């Protein structure tokens, strides 16, 4: 008697964006992971006299302005940029989302307070914060991550609060209250999973922002310290080489685009397969 109205399983038809996104992300993460074990050359090995070398059998993509192997630099750059972006987004995202959830859960003056703090975070130049961290703890990639995470907090706080407020009006939340759950348990069990979609979308956007923010901080000496490359730093260093060696800007730029698009598509795809409403619609 349990003839449920399960629609015929749509096979294993995963959305294109999910597959494409997963492939791109795997590519980037793979390269980053591989760089821990192996790179075609020592990424710090320079040979100034062989700068801007054209691609050949030894240097697959040629060399950079100091004669270092571009492939190796890009691989190690993948590792560093991924670390920055993922860490910053995870950190800022989780704090921000937690704040947003808290604001929505408690409401009233707490919500006001959290949102005003978020305003302050919005208004406060990340640059100033990065300089402060560098000044107090010395410049490092970690501090760059912290600074970027910091600018992410208010963004996620806003997005998650808005989404959470909507979910709080749903009847299943009232049902959970009736079940005796307190606000924190409800936030954890019901609100968080159901605001995942907008939060994930925001995370993919912030992911791109983080990679580029690191570049901007590196430019001021507040990001990754030499000799570790990041894509952002490679890109900003290649700015003035646009006319002479455009490939030095194109490759890291392409890497950034690939990584960001990969995570973006993956995020879209994940939302498409996890949102039951979209599943139903299909």
């Amino acid at each position, binding site marked *: 008697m349990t003839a449920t109205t399960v629609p015929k399983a749509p096979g294993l038809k995963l959305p294109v964006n999910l597959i494409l996104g997963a492939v791109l992300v795997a590519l980037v993460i793979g390269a980053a992971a591989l760089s821990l074990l192996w790179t075609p050359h020592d990424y710090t090995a320079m040979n100034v006299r062989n700068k801007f070398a054209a691609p050949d059998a030894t240097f697959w993509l040629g060399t950079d302005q100091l004669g270092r192997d571009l492939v190796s630099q890009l691989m190690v750059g993948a590792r560093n940029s991924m670390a920055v972006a993922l860490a910053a987004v995870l950190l800022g995202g989780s704090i921000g989302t937690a704040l947003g959830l808290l604001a929505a859960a408690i409401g009233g003056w707490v919500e*006001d307070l959290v949102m005003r703090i978020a305003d302050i975070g919005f208004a406060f130049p990340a640059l100033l*914060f990065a300089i402060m961290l560098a000044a107090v703890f010395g410049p490092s990639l970690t501090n760059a991550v912290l600074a970027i995470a910091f600018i992410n907090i208010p963004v996620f706080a806003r997005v998650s609060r808005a989404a959470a407020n909507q979910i709080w009006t749903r009847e299943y939340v009232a049902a959970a209250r009736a079940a005796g759950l307190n606000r924190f348990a409800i936030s954890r069990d019901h609100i968080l999973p159901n605001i995942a979609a907008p939060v994930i979308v925001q995370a993919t956007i912030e992911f791109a922002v983080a990679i*580029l923010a690191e570049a901007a901080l590196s430019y001021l000496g507040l990001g990754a310290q030499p000799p570790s490359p990041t894509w952002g730093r490679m890109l900003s260093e290649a700015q003035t080489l*646009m006319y002479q060696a455009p490939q030095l800007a194109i490759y890291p730029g392409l890497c950034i685009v690939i990584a960001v698009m990969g995570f973006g598509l993956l995020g879209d795809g994940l939302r498409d397969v996890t949102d039951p409403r979209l599943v139903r619609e299909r």
Partner: protein
Amino acid sequence: MGYFLLRRSVGFVLTLLAVSVVVFAVMNVLPGDPALTILGLDATEDALQALRDQLGLNDPLLIRYWSWITHALVGDFGVSHSFRVPVSDLIAERLPMTISLAVSGMIFTVILALILGIAAAANHRKAGDWGVMFVSQLGIAIPAFWLAMLLVLIFAVNLRWLPPGGFPGWSDPVAAMRALILPTVALALVQSSVLARVTRSSALEVMRQDYVRTARATGFSRQRVLWRHVLPNALVPIVTIVGMQFAALVTGTIVIENVFYLPGLGRLIFQSIANRDLPTVQALVMLFAAIVVTANFIVDLLYLVIDPRLKARA
């Protein structure tokens, strides 16, 4: 509504106050001596000391903060340490640039995003939709300064259609608008891509609503339904994001103003932080905070305009 206004105004003042305390504290724990930055490596110690006295840097922190905040309350933001002119003059000089840029960026963002987002929603799961989703994903991924360089290379250096940078001021509106085109695109493309996606998903959400079906049943064309019924209802989430984006555009000017050598606030705050010009940094951060809070406030008011139902909840 009155209560709402009151609560927001109190929030506004408290926010600015908190910002001022934080900036003041941060600027003071930062290593870096404004006097040394101004006078350079060859300055003698007594010259430095004299300048510090002049700038009031030798007073205790609290006294400096108190004097600053009491003056700020009456609209006097002090004299810039490095430029030696009233900070308010500095800001007044540069504000038009940044506002022009941010506003044109906002206009560009909104128009492009609405067109693309609605077009994508209208062609849900068709080529147009995929196209917009792909292009917007790309738009998010392209670094702003990188895009800026590319635009300059193509449109200023090679084609010579537009100037590579600089801002002639509004006395010559045509020149001013031409000068704004490239920076606007570089500044706003990312935001526009983000907004296009928000527009699309929020339009799709609205298109599932019953009243859209009613409108179609009334025999209206797709276009009419989209612009008359879907868009206005999709605006609430769009406006939320737009409010955040305005703040992002204002802060985004830091990079863009450098690449296009535009005389705006972004570059000013960058310089002032480097110069440890406390009064200027302080005033600018307060200004940014005010802009952010005001933008959010305007968004809240816009909700009321957009959605008559919300008037009941304010």
